[in-house]
């Protein structure tokens, strides 16, 4: 028998939403609207995607997979762009980065016969790779902006000693990559010990044998690990130079002065 949650049971999820909602109400956190909106939005999105996936899974792979992956890439790129607000061409860089990573990972899965080219396998797994890469790019962009602000003095010192922007920003690039990769490294270290990863849990709940589920989990975990590393590295190396101009001057400090004017 296929395990299934009844619609009535699902309705009781409202209780889980009421808990943070009452906390927000009593402590006046001002999150009420946000909690209700995100819960409703999440529910609608998931049902919509459920129906869409059912439809896509029935389509020929060659149509369903590229269609869904294009949607995922576009949504992910627009979402990650918010963290890089103000940086030129950031949307394009994010989109290209995600596209190259997704195509490479998918290519390797297919070449080494880890995943079958069917929508039911490729779409959920690609979603995990794209989603995690999107988060990594967003984190890297946010961190990089902060690091440039916080290390303004050190950057000026390095530039004033004759360093080119690529050398002066080495420290920033290192710190950014570290910050973007550490959560992922930690997650990989404790995988299966602290929490059973989502995909494996899903497969086990769906009736798949744990060892088979683990194999899929390994494929996705390692793929995510490498795509997250690549995403953070790609976006950091692509964007750091926009903090400088061609004369090796910090663009940020120039803007500050202009805004004072």
């Amino acid at each position: 028998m296929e395990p299934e949650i009844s619609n009535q049971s699902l309705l009781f999820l409202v209780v889980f939403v009421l808990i943070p909602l009452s906390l927000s109400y009593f402590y006046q956190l001002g999150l009420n609207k946000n909690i209700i909106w995100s819960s409703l939005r999440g529910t609608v999105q998931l049902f919509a995607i459920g129906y869409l996936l059912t439809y896509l899974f029935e389509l020929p792979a060659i149509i369903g997979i590229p269609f869904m992956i294009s949607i995922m890439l576009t949504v992910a790129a627009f979402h990650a762009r918010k963290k890089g607000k103000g940086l030129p061409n950031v949307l394009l860089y994010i989109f290209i980065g995600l596209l190259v990573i997704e195509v490479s990972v998918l290519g390797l899965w297919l070449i080494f016969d880890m995943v079958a080219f069917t929508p039911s396998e490729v779409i959920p797994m690609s979603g995990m790779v794209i989603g995690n890469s999107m988060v990594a790019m967003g984190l890297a962009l946010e961190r990089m902006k902060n690091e440039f602000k916080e290390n303004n003095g050190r950057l000026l010192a390095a530039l004033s000693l004759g360093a080119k922007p690529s050398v002066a920003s080495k420290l920033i690039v290192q710190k950014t990559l570290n910050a973007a990769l550490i959560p992922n490294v930690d997650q990989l270290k404790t995988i299966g010990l602290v929490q059973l990863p989502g995909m494996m849990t899903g497969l086990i709940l769906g009736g798949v044998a744990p060892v088979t589920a683990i194999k899929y989990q390994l494929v996705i975990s390692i793929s995510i690990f490498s795509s997250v590393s690549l995403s953070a590295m790609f976006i950091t190396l692509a964007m750091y130079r926009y903090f400088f101009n061609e004369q090796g001057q910090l663009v940020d400090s120039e803007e500050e002065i202009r805004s004072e004017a």
Partner: protein
Amino acid sequence: MFRFEQVSRYPLKKMDFQIEKKEKVILFGPSGSGKSTILFLFNRLHNPTEGTIYFEGQNVKEYPFTELRKRVGLVLQEPNLFPGTVLDNIKYGPSLFGEWKEEDGELLMGYVQLPSTYLNRDVEQLSGGEKQRVSLARTLANQPEVLLLDEPTSALDYRTAEDIEEVLEQLINQHELTMIMVTHDMRQARRLGSRGLFITEGEVMEDGKLPDMLDSPASQALKEFLEE
């Protein structure tokens, strides 16, 4: 050595002045008058919005910025040391140009009167004064012809500031450097400077010999500034 021709950049307004080799120039004036901006213009950490700056008769824009900055060293108000050891910091500049020699470490420590045992010390373990000395040594490691100093002792206590002043005085005289320094400390200006540029509201209000211009200020603005 340096010539400013009609140079402006907020908050500076059309500046014209010249600085000769080996001069010891003090830039002083009220906060926000543009003194640090002038310093940053010398080594092209900023560009003027109008006008031209000449270094050794040549527009600064014609120099590769890395070469100009090597020749025109800057010490900032905060030491802004890089993570790592003292040695990592002082070899930073010369290593960029493939000019670092191991024996220079001891020599540079000597210049800023720190023991050479400090070379392998983590910069996090240093006091404020020691950090500023390392910052100075890091700039000197590039063997600059001009030393730009942006209030290098303002973040230090009086005693430590005096020690750094002494180091600076010796270094500038010994190496015959051209010095351009921003300071709010008129005692320091008298001690280290030979010429003063009083900057107010983005303009050079007075340009004269030190300490004479402080003893008998020509303008009312300078009088008022000194009385504050």
